[in-house]
């Protein structure tokens, strides 16, 4: 495979409700910042690809107007995925393998505040036999958390301790949304949202956007001093029907990690896209991460969860830490669908 690296990452601070900006206004500043970090002009970008979802905006073709944020004139070589931006990054990485272009711009945005997010996500389920049941995203995650507790792999106190730790880490991240420190005892005093999940074990609802720049080989070395090289990237999907899955495991993460070369190696840090606290336990086990790995130093999706953005932001957060010397090797992960249905794993490495 051709050497490709993340060379820039920019994000907006996540907020519960951004009432002042349309999607194009969310995207434009992060695109401008990422290109500036990469020392690229927009007309030098070989391929542009974005990730977003019409259902969050409640309108068709929402990505069409957002494209204005990259000022696509003269016309650009471009694509869009109706997925988290992490999959847009994968499409860009694939595109760069062809060898005829050297740089790619990826952006993602999500404005969940425009609707009732748990209700919107019901529309993501099998429309004939599951969606009509009306089980929302928090309810399905609670089923998964209950299965994990029943299996003896985590306790409600354990979830609160995990959430408290992420809040401590998020305090250092100006883009995180949930940054006020709370002890596990304080968090356990919250009422259940859907038992066994309390608010602290569920993600915040967020509006946000981020952008990443990829570059290949010598172009990456020329543009920045420490590129975060993608040593492996892969993703795998699981059955949609929850009854066909063991909700306490993530075989798709395991398989993607195997294909990406993420099993058995030593990592300084991991950015895991675990919107719900118990999902971090499942992912950590699937990836075989031990206590020596710093998990979600950014605070993770428990601290900020802009839909369609949070997965790409995990890759960007991990890469930024490597590029700024806070580690040499990282694993980053993104997820899509109910109860971790679809998972992407990326191994990132900085030159010594």
């Amino acid at each position: 495979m051709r050497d490709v690296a993340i060379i820039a990452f920019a994000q907006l601070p996540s907020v519960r409700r951004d009432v002042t900006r349309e999607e194009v206004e969310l995207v434009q500043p992060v695109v401008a910042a990422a290109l500036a970090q990469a020392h690229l002009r927009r007309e030098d970008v070989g391929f542009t690809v974005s990730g977003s979802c019409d259902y969050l905006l409640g309108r068709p073709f929402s990505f069409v107007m957002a494209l204005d944020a990259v000022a696509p004139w003269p016309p650009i070589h471009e694509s869009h995925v109706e997925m988290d931006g992490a999959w847009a990054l994968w499409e860009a990485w694939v595109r760069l393998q062809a060898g005829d272009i050297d740089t790619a711009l990826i952006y993602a945005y999500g404005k969940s505040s425009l609707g009732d997010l748990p209700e919107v996500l019901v529309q993501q389920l099998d429309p004939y036999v599951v969606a009509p049941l009306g089980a929302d995203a928090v309810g399905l995650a609670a089923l998964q958390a209950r299965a994990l507790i029943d299996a003896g792999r985590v306790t409600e106190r354990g979830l609160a301790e995990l959430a408290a730790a992420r809040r401590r880490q998020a305090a250092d991240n100006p883009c995180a949304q949930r940054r006020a420190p709370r002890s596990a005892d304080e968090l356990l005093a919250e009422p259940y949202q859907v038992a066994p999940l309390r608010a602290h074990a569920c993600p915040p609802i967020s509006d946000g956007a981020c952008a990443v720049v990829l570059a290949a080989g010598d172009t990456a070395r020329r543009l920045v001093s420490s590129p975060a090289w993608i040593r492996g990237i892969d993703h795998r999907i699981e059955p949609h029907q929850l009854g066909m899955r063991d909700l306490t495991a993530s075989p798709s993460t395991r398989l993607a990690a195997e294909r990406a070369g993420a099993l058995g190696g030593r990592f300084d840090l991991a950015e895991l896209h675990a919107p719900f606290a118990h999902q971090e336990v499942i992912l950590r086990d699937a990836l075989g991460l031990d206590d020596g790995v710093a998990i979600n130093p950014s605070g993770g999706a428990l601290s900020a969860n802009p839909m369609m953005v949070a997965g790409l932001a995990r890759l960007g957060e991990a890469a930024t830490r490597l590029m700024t010397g806070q580690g040499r090797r990282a694993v980053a992960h993104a997820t899509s669908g109910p109860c971790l249905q679809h998972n992407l794993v990326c191994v990132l490495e900085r030159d010594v």
Partner: protein
Amino acid sequence: MGANRCAIVGIGQTHHKAKRQDVSIAGLVREAAARALADAELTWKDIDAVVIGKAPDMFEGVMMPELYLADALGAVGKPMLRVHTAGSVGGSTAIAAAHLVMGGVHQRVLTVAFEKQSESDAMWALSPKIPFQPQLTAGAGGYFAPLVRAYIRRSGAPDDVGLQVAVKDRLHALKNPYAHLRIKGIDRAMVADSPMLWDPIRYLETCPSSDGACAMVMTSEAIAAAAPRPPAWVHGLSTRSEPVVFAGRDQVNPQAGRDCARDVYTQAGISDPRRDLACAELYVPFSWFEPMWLENLGFAAPGEGWKLTASGATALGGALPINPSGGVLSSNPIGASGMLRFAEAAMQVRDQAGEHQVDGARRALGHAYGGGSQFFAMWIVGRDRP
């Protein structure tokens, strides 16, 4: 283009209809995919990755349906990508799939595109009320009719060129067993007598709303060597996008379309598309878009496209058959319409198009566009290995 060659070894499509009430969404996509696998003589297990595309999720009312379709498409345990680039999506999806092979990432890729318009109402989904923007209450026809009027004024084309395209594509559709509209006895009088929807576009000059899907299996050169039937080879492929709102845009002859065509011609080593291509499948949802795209794609000089159409050259048996399958005017499962153009081009160079086969077709163009004439996806496929 990439370091590795990409071959299309399997092609399948559904019978397109206004309402496919005999199948679920999963049943629809599986029907096309199973036919593509059968054509390639491969099984679900042989596939390394699945790339799926469709137009807005509101057309069915299912958010990110690839999640629910993973089981039906045999994608479990594999990578699955969902592309959405408006009307051009069927083409962009095929291009994303081809890049997986050309980049050496996977060896055997299944790509599928679909729309099941009967599950919802596309006219509603195309007419959203967006704050601070004028509401587009007339669907796609309301958007594109002014562009057609501008083309007629600019080129001085006679009024009946649109009628001619509408008849020609429906005559082609009578030779295509999968086509949605198969109108016996179609002629100019029938089209001219149909109601005017968006002046100058009459009812029979517009595309239908269809349920349908299309699928292709693409492989590396090594895998294609064992294919049971001759493959189609990718000779060139690209996309171009430009903004919606920009005073410098020429929406009648968009620069993105011209740039995209130039890119694929260069990749394929084509200097004169009219001479070097046997036929083309162009995304023509309203009859007048045939002469407009003939100019945009360099088959005719600006202002001359209608003359090529009027000469009869674009009918089967003519010098440059356009839309031998019957085109979007005869079948329009929106998300799949672009991939159908790409697949029909590949069927031509595989000598697989049955009654609508262009004799001896060696190279063909597949074309798709979307948004406000701003997103373009194209490929050139050939009988010979590039």
